[in-house]
Structures are given as C-alpha cells and as structure tokens.
C-alpha cells in the first residue's frame, strides 16, 4: 500500500511569491514595456485602458481594453526584456 502522504501546503522559504494585485502587475508590465509612459502613470483608468488596448493589439490578443484572463496570462508569460514600445 502507498504510504500516507502529507496533504498540507506550506510556504517555502525564499519563494518569490508575488503579493501584487492584478492591477499592480498590469501597471508594472504596461510601464516596463513602454505601453504606459511615465507621464501617464497617474493611475487613471483611462490611461490604463488605452495602454491595455495597445498591449493587446501589439501582442495579437483580443483588444478589449480590459484586464481579462488572456491578458493576465500574457503578462505572466516568459518573454524578452526589451520594451515593445519606445526606446
């Protein structure tokens, strides 16, 4: 018989667990890759929506302007560190 295994979930020391909310993650991504310029990082919904649309268009996602599941997954996917927009 298989031995009983631990069923608990633990917190591993040194694990980089992101404490950021989805919106914080999105803003960081949009800023890092050039969709949200420094001057527009005011947190205004309008700027974020516009940046999201630009990002979705650039990456070939459905352009919704929303932080939907596909967009979040794209933001978490492995990628090149060179910005998509700007220098």
């Amino acid at each position, binding site marked *: 018989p298989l031995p009983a295994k631990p069923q608990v979930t633990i917190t591993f020391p040194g694990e980089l667990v992101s404490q950021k909310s989805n919106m914080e993650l999105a803003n960081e991504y949009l800023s890092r890759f050039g969709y949200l310029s420094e001057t527009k990082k005011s947190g205004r919904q309008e700027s974020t929506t516009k940046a999201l649309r630009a990002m979705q268009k650039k*990456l070939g996602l459905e352009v919704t302007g929303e932080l939907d599941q596909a967009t979040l997954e794209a933001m978490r996917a492995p990628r090149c560190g*060179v910005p998509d927009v700007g220098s």
Partner: protein
Amino acid sequence: FLTFEGNLKWDHTDLTYRVTNYSPDLDASVINDAFKRAFKVWSAVTPLTFTQVYSGEADIMIMFGSQEHGDGYPFDGKDGLLAHAFPPGQGIQGDAHFDDDEFWTLGAGLVVNTSFGNANGAACHFPFVFEGKSYSHCTAEGRSDGLPWCSTTPSFDQDKLYGFCPSELLYTYGGNSDGAKCVFPFVFDGTSYNTCTTEGRSDGYRWCATTANFDQDKKYGFCPNRDTAVIGGNSQGEPCAFPFTFLGQTYSSCTSEGREDGRLWCATTSNYDVDRKWGLCPDRGYSIFLVAAHEFGHSLGLDHTSVREALMYPMYSYIEDFQLHQDDIEGIQFLYGRGSGPKPTPPGPVPPTQTPDVPDQTTLATTTEDSGFQPTEPSPVDPGSDACRVQAFDAITEINGMMHFFKSGKYWRTSQSLKGKIQGPFPIAETWPALPATLDAAFQDLLTKKIFFFAGQRFWVYTGKSVLGPRGLEKLGLAPAPARLTGALQRGRGKVLLFSGEHFWRLDVKVQRVDRGYPRQTEETFGGVPIDVHNVFLYRGKYHFCQDRFCWRMTPRYQVDRVGYLKYDVLHCP
C-alpha cells in the same frame, strides 16, 4: 517587422561576438554551438558574417547574469524576463544578456552529456538499469569516489556503456584553474568548505577552490550544475539530496507535495524539516538557441514585431522545427540587404523524354559492371530548391555509392567524389517512375544492386529500369505489417535491417523474407538512440538515426559516438 528608432544598424557586416561567461546549466560547447547557430539564422539571409573572438571588445558581447547584472535593467528571477539585448552601436550597444536564474536547455529538458567513461561522450539514457535497479538521474552508486555517472543505454547491466555526469568532483569551468576539479575541503577567508559555495560572491554563482587553500593560492573555478541541480528556492544550483525527509516522509525523487501549483521540488539536504533548504526541479527549460536568435535580432537592429509566429515576437514559445519567418527575413533584409548566396535561376528547358541514356560518371563506375544498370541522368527540377533548407527528409539511403535524400517527389544526391556538392533536386518520377512521391525508406542490396523502396505498407524493387511492385510488406514476412518503415541498414551481404518505431526486422534479401526471431526491440540492440526517429541509414560505415534535424551516429559496436546535425554532418551544408 519593426526596426529601432532611426533604423539603428551596424556600419560594417563582418561582426564579432564574444561570450564573456557561461551558464552552469549547459556545457560551454553546447552554449557556443547554440550561439553559433543563432547567428547563422541571420547570416543565412543577409551579407552579415559573425566571428567569435575570445578576448578584447567585440561588437556583440554576450553574458549570463541574474537580477541586477550591471546595466541598470535587472532580471527578475526564474521565468518572466528571459534575456535582453541592446540595439547596434558602441559600448554596451549590441550586447546580449541572458538571465541565469532561468534553466537553460535546448528547449526540451535536461540533456546530460557525459565525460570520460567508455561511451564517447554520449548523453545519459534515463532511466537506466544498474544491478537490477532503475535510475532516473546520475548516481554515485557502485563507486567509492563519489563521482556521479550514468549509463548511456537503457541497461548498464547489459551494455556496460557509461560516462561521468557533470560534477565539481570532475571539473570546473571559468575561473583561473583551466577546468581543474574542486579540492574539498578548501579554505576560504579562514573557513573550511566541503561543498561548492556562493560565499564571497554577489552574483550567486557557485564556486570552489582548486587547491586546498584559496586564501593562499587564489585558484578557483565555477561548479557545473549537476543533473539534479535545483532552480531557485533558497538553494539555486545545489543538487537535490535524495532521499530527503519532508514532513516526516521520505522522498527519493522530486515531489509536488506541499505545493499548490503542482511544480516539482526537492530538498537539497537530507532533511527539509530541519534545514528547510530546497529548490525547484529541472523542467523543460528555455531554449538558449531560440532566445539567443531573438536577442541577436535586437543586436542587429530589429525591434519587436506583432507577428506571433515570427522570431522577433516578444514572448517565448518553443518551436521544434525552427525556421526564420518571412517577417523576420524582411526586417533584417530591410536593414542589411540580401545575402550573397545563390539566387534562384529560371528553370532550364525540359529535356525530351526519349533522351539517350547518359550514365552519370560516378554511378557508371560502380554499377555497370555489376548490373548493367545505366541510369538516365536526371534533370534538376528546381535549381533554387536547396536541400540544406529541408527540415526533414522522407528517406535517406546510399545508392550506387551516392547518398540520396528523398523529399516530396524530389531527391538530392551527394558523394565524397563530389566534394560536398549536392546535386539536385531531381524528380523521383523521372528516375523511378513507378514510385509514389513520398517514400519512407529505401536501400540498395549490395550484392544484386537491386533497390528497394518503401512507402506506407507497400514496397517496390528496381533492378535497373525494371520494377516489381508495389507489393505489400507482409510479402516480406512483416506481419502484422507496420504502418510505415523508417529506414534500413545494410548488414553485410544479403542482410538488411528494416526499422519501424520500436521494432526492427532482419531481411534476407536473397529470399526476400525476414528472418525468424524478428521483430526485435530497437532499444535492446541500438540503445541510446530515440525510438521515434524519422530516418535510419548507413553513412560512411556508421549507423545514423535521425530525428528531426538531429542525428545519432552509432558505431558498428553500437556505441553512440556523436549526436549532430543531418545538415552539417551528412549533407555538409555551409
């Protein structure tokens, strides 16, 4: 495609690159080869040339680093950002940096190349059996010196083929000790160390002294990652400690217990509950070749594209059969123009069907005396169609002393006497009219010079211009007949091995019947080669098992002595 603002580009085409350090994940030779191939992606379609230099300032300086690594653009640990590169220019411009918190592979998981032993550097075969026990990672079992080793075939007990796995007990890389192995214990800053350490460094690389006293001798090297080295956690690069204890249970392999995300992990000491040292187990990793090819695109002046299938799309995806996308080609040629290679030429006049037989000089010498077969010299159908650009051939074999490469109704041929020149493509239908366009395998009987062709469950036999067939494979005694064959190996006079997936048969060509006792398991005899190969053929006295564009070369004594490329090793493409 997009270029950087101002169309930044190099003002010369003879570019140099230098690899300033290496990742512990892969052999330096594998990394160098991947970079070379990545540059070739671009040089193949432009006039650009790339030369590796080993000192001084190169146009493109390549480095591995993690987190903040000196340029103000920090990496972010495992996954996420993989690499970045700067557009063309002086100084840091043009340079490419790779995040060494990633697990760098060729994209399909760990490849453990061996050193020394008796397997000529062949890769480990996991799992393998040693003294009746199965091992899925390198082991020091059976040795008193602690050196990890592996079998390069499924069974060490049977084949006795082995090599040593990467280990600091065998060698180091980088540093100033010319690859000397670690000496344990060694003294650093007054403290004695029995294992590789990251102490004294801020970049996280594990190192050791190669004499007993670093403080005195200052001799050191970096420790290669073992096959069980973990990624991330709090023990980056340390090997798993099997067996280990976790919440009172013993584990002899990586486990996902204790995690919600299902990722496999292990402890790097024998007791996680006490030491809490751990890391994630190796996964498929990221292809250093694909990421490098992308980054070098930046180094040459290409920005990110929106074309998802293109190399310059910003997100990583693993592609097995990589081919540069038209978007990338147009982008790089916008900056540098086309290459100076052969350009397509208009097709020549179609030869009349009733041409007199003009024997090919090479084949004539080898065939006329034996069989009276004087083949019609075929006409190239499309001089612009390049065998070197074919990803995988339908069938490969030697006919009349020339290697023949079949693909979708066409074939190319080459031989040593042609000094690497590839002739063709020729239409199959012109030389062997009875055959279908797509073949699976072929071979020529060394005695009678008859040529056997296989497609699906049918085969044809050509004797000169006479043909017999198609006939069913079951006529040869292959029952039940496999869906298709993958290749054939001439085995002395009158015997040929026919391969299909996990099985092979020995065909007695004279009676055209497979011998009793077959099929046999391919891996039992030809251990160390993939079972899902596409082509099997004999070339220069050695067996070749090709999967995609890679070929496992095996000696007649069943030792894999090289894993290389069909394109370069057999076709000798530039």
